[in-house]
């Protein structure tokens, strides 16, 4: 077990180093000069050169990489070129939106998907199953920005229950802040739930065909007990895998929904930083996300062991 853990940690560290090189290289290859972007069309070449020096853009590439990577090791993520505040401050503000949003969406998606999956699997091939899976198909197919706009028109423009967008900050009160995350969370959760429900259904169907399920039924266990206690638990592994992937996506891949609801989330920060060539912000945030994804994957691995005791002994 220790050897396994050690191996995992070494692999994770190597992945991080490699990712940092790739991220840095890609951002450097991108055409565009942050200094010119800041000073605009009328600035002279001398001024651009002066600003480049100030921002440290004229130091050799390798030195800049080492400086940046060294900073990351000591948890110093550098300063944003455009906002001229520490990157970590920007991230902290955005995480305060993105993390709760991702968690709410994930919870919603699970609450919807698992019962639907169980319902469908236990009625495989019957009308209820067809209907549920048809709805799931629709959920996957509907573009989420369109769905988001429909939600806005219904709940914000027509019913005036929630704001059409924006985020007032947690300082405005927990309920006010939560209210502004509600629609985006629903818009994000629906397609994720649709995917998850389909995964849960097929995993469950597979398990339900196993011999031990027949044995459990044969020894007289009621169908419900078999379904919820034995089958579902065994079908959780693919569901958890998908959940882990979805969480990583929900943290930073939600730029479209963030735009529609004009939420100050991580996705928009990255997008904005790329267009403004705020290289250091992009590089540092991508590295944070890489770290987060690696950690989530580790967590998912551990959760396998929790749902499937057989995995605890292995390796």
């Amino acid at each position, binding site marked *: 077990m220790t050897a396994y853990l050690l191996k995992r940690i070494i692999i994770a560290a190597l992945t991080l180093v490699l990712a940092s090189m790739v991220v840095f290289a890609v951002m450097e290859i991108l055409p565009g000069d942050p200094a010119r972007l*800041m*000073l605009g069309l009328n600035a002279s070449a001398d001024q651009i050169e002066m600003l480049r020096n100030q921002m440290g853009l004229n130091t050799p590439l390798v030195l800049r990489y080492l400086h940046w990577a060294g900073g990351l090791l000591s948890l110093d993520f550098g300063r944003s070129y455009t906002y001229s505040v520490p990157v970590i401050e920007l991230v902290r503000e955005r995480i305060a939106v993105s993390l709760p949003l991702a968690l709410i969406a994930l919870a919603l998606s699970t609450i919807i998907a698992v019962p639907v999956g169980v319902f469908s699997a236990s009625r495989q091939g019957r009308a209820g199953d067809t209907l549920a899976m048809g709805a799931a198909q629709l959920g996957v197919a509907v573009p989420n920005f369109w769905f988001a706009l429909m939600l806005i028109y219904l709940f914000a423009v027509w019913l005036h229950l929630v704001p*059409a967008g924006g985020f007032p900050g947690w300082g405005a009160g927990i309920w006010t802040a939560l209210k502004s995350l509600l629609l985006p969370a629903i818009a994000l959760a629906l397609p994720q739930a649709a995917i998850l429900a389909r995964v849960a259904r097929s995993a469950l169907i597979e398990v339900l065909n196993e011999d031990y399920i027949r044995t459990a039924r044969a020894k007289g266990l009621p169908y419900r007990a078999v379904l919820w206690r034995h089958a579902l638990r065994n079908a959780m592994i693919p569901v958890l895998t998908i959940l882990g992937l979805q969480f990583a996506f929900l943290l930073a891949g939600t730029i479209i929904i963030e735009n529609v609801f004009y939420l100050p989330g991580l996705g*928009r920060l990255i997008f904005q930083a790329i267009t403004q060539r705020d290289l250091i912000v992009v590089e540092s945030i991508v590295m944070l996300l890489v770290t987060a994804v690696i950690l989530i994957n580790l967590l998912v691995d551990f959760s396998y062991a929790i749902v499937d005791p057989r995995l605890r002994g292995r390796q």
Partner: protein
Amino acid sequence: MKLWKTILAAAVLSLAAATSAFAARTDLTLGIVLEPPHLDPTAGAAAAIGEVTYANVFEGLTRIDDNGQVQPGLAENWTVSDDGKVYTFKLHSGVKFHDGSAFSADDVKFSLDRARAKDSLNPQKQLFAHITDVTAVDPATVKVTLDGPQGSFLYDMGQVAAVIVAKGSADGNKDKPIGTGPFKLDHWAKGSEITLVKNPDYWGTPAALDKATFRIVPDAAAAVPALLSGDIQAFANMPAQDALAQLQSDPRFSVVIGSTEGETILSINNKKPPFDKLAVRQALASAIDRSAIIAAASNGLGKPIGSHFSPGDAGYVDLTGVYPHDLAKAKEYLKEAGLENGFSATIKLPPVPYARDGGQVIQSQLKEIGVNLQIIPVEWAEWLSQVFTNKDYDLTIVSHVEPNDIDIYSRPGYYFQYDNPKFNDVIEELGTTVDKDKRLKLLGVAQKILAHDVPAVYLFELPKIGVWDAKLQGMWTNWPIEADDLTKVKWTD
């Protein structure tokens, strides 16, 4: 007990509703598309900086009004020496910066000297290039000496990058802007909104609004429901053009189409063959049908232009008829250039709707005379480095939003790669001409040279599409400079 509480609550609520019905609202939430990178107009070129801060937070010696006219700002009045070289500004008294420090002639000297210094990073440093000396005569008088008479000096001192800052706070203005204006920064939730509040110590007419919030709405589709739900009450320039008809027919909103200083042009790399031949450029100009481009790229709202000049400005000459849309003529021009079989070229399009939509129309229009354009979409950062800095392009579409910028065609090394000594002479003369009529005449000459020589094909003037609550008054109709001046904005009932 519970019942009493309910009744009491209902009474309080109805009372609150009643009082709010009597007093006009004093808060406003405006939508803006792009977030400013920071809030210091003397350190960044992003238009959004000026949108939020100009006239609201920061003020200059002079100021530009809604019609593009120069008005007194921090300077109450001024005199100009007979040779046009020395401007003496008399400053308002009792002016305070937002941090409580007093404003005086020393701040003006500091600001102008800082902007023109050798290590200045002012994005419009050229505005200050002719200043040779700034002297604080007494706390309320500043003398500015120029190297020669400057026709647009008073206008330039009213521009966004020429605002007056204080020595003690200048370096912190990016994050905590300290100006002299009627509003001061309350807080900036990055990525979300910037809130300004009324400055109680303002030296001039106080603002009617107590609070103004600029909320960043990057998505055009989100802008409409934001207005409809009442979350946002004004867009100085609305991005959602498709929804315009819907908003126009809604009595709750005012839709005000104004002009800007944005000449939208098909820029040509004048040194790159075959565009170095006049006949080729004439062929492009004749093959292009402005009305189709305006319909596609600005919902039919842009005004056609025939030269690099805003139709709203004094001195404008209508030159849209110099090269009328005429395919036969265009083919003749190509033949004259020895390219009767046409040629291929690229067009680099920045990520703005007018360029991406307009580019497709131009591609199909030029195809009719055998000119095959390959569209290359680029980001702004790429556009700036490839097109603007390295001049690695054939054609591009861009809107030049700087006011009074016809002189860019005389700038050496500018990305048009256009060099016409005759034009340069006119611009040089214009620079030192102060007499108004003479200036307008020279501007006319300059416009005509460009219209005939086609260093770029002139398409249309970018419109400003203002949409706001019908009860709101005092928003700017036009954008002579990109500013959302809120000093006269108020709610009516």
